[in-house]
């Protein structure tokens, strides 16, 4: 899906409801503009379609410093048809970039798990680029809470 102005407004409102004070007052946060720009750079200007890629992340992260995320993309992973890369972004971090995963036909399956940092409640975005250049996207909101003692 494309990040339309309406999405951006809706997300902004959501962030205002769920956001909790980050510890870095004064820092600039990545905006949706930065995120959209990063997506467009990755896709070469193409708008990602929905489907084929699944992003798994906890609905509520126990601690924002270590949030497990997994991506999985439907693909035969043959020499002619495979997933080339998956871009992972966090639109509410100081910088939206998290990681870019590169697969090959030798990966066998386009699935990977890692752990990331989330500064506050926000959307995590994963964009897959296939060997034919087509692009797909999935998005999950992860709530990051400041605990009584854990946060």
């Amino acid at each position: 899906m494309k990040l339309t102005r309406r999405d951006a407004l809706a997300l902004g409102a959501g962030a205002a409801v769920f956001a909790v004070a980050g510890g870095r007052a004064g820092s600039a946060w990545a905006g949706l503009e930065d995120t959209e720009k990063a997506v467009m750079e990755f896709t070469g200007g193409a708008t990602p379609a929905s489907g084929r890629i699944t992003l798994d992340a906890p609905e509520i992260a126990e601690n924002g410093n270590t949030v497990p995320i997994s991506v999985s993309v439907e693909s035969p992973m043959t020499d002619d048809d495979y997933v080339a890369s998956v871009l992972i972004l966090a639109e509410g971090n100081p910088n939206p970039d998290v990681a870019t995963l590169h697969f090959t036909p030798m990966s066998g399956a386009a699935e990977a798990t890692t752990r990331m940092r989330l500064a506050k409640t926000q959307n995590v975005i994963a964009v897959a680029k296939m060997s034919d250049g087509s692009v797909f996207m999935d998005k999950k909101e992860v709530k990051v809470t400041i605990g009584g003692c854990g946060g």
Partner: protein
Amino acid sequence: MDIRKLGLAAALGLTAGMAFGPAQSDPVDDTLVIDGETEITTRAKAVEGVPFDEVISGWHYRTDETREVEADSFANPGMLYVERGEEIWNTVDGAAGKSCASCHDNAAESMRGVGAEYPKWNAAAGKPYNLELFINDHRVEKMQAEPYKFDAADQKALVTFVKHQSFGMPVKVDLEAGDMKAWWEQGKERYYTRTGQLNMSCATCHEDNNGNYIRADHLSQGNVNGFPTYRLKQSNMVSLHNRFRGCIRDTRATYPAAFSDDLMALEVYVTWRGTGLSVETPAVRQ
């Protein structure tokens, strides 16, 4: 939640901006099996004197994702520190030219069960010792090396490694030795004494409100069978005395020095409360 707790939550909420949430949720009904092989005792019948029927590991109070990380010995980042501790165990340090291994050989044999019995009465010192104090004495006396400063990276790694040699064994504190009973009494008093601007004791959270939420945190019984524990917040090992100090600090009280009599007594009492739970070191917590 009874009236007393509601009153407490309201008072805290109004005066201090901290509140125990209305949501109560039971510890998760799950079984901790490491790598699908080793079952860990995370619930045990409480020993006489503990005000619960059953003592429950903090593992049951964590989210699915966090519990899964602990259940996979590879995914558990605490194991990195176990490996680092093994290196330290085998590394010569100090003027005597010795490593831990010079005297204690293979830790898997010599340290098996040792960590499960700490804190332990030390007759020479006339007080209970934990592994940190034990290791520092040996560094000074046997190795002629510098004692570790509190929470030095190597101290945390070595204690994690030694404690891990008792992985899966039940926590068992010997209260019959020396003056352990008196230290236990002192620790118990500390546990129930309210301190700080928030006027909270250990019992406020971990006894009266365990199972409730304090803001976003699901309060456990505060058992310490998993220490040193890998905390997601610090992305590092956290020692028991660091956690004690952190808890006391959070009540907005002046916190005692690590290994002070105050905290050693608390360690004796709190460790004893978890008697029968398996050593989980390195546990994974939020």
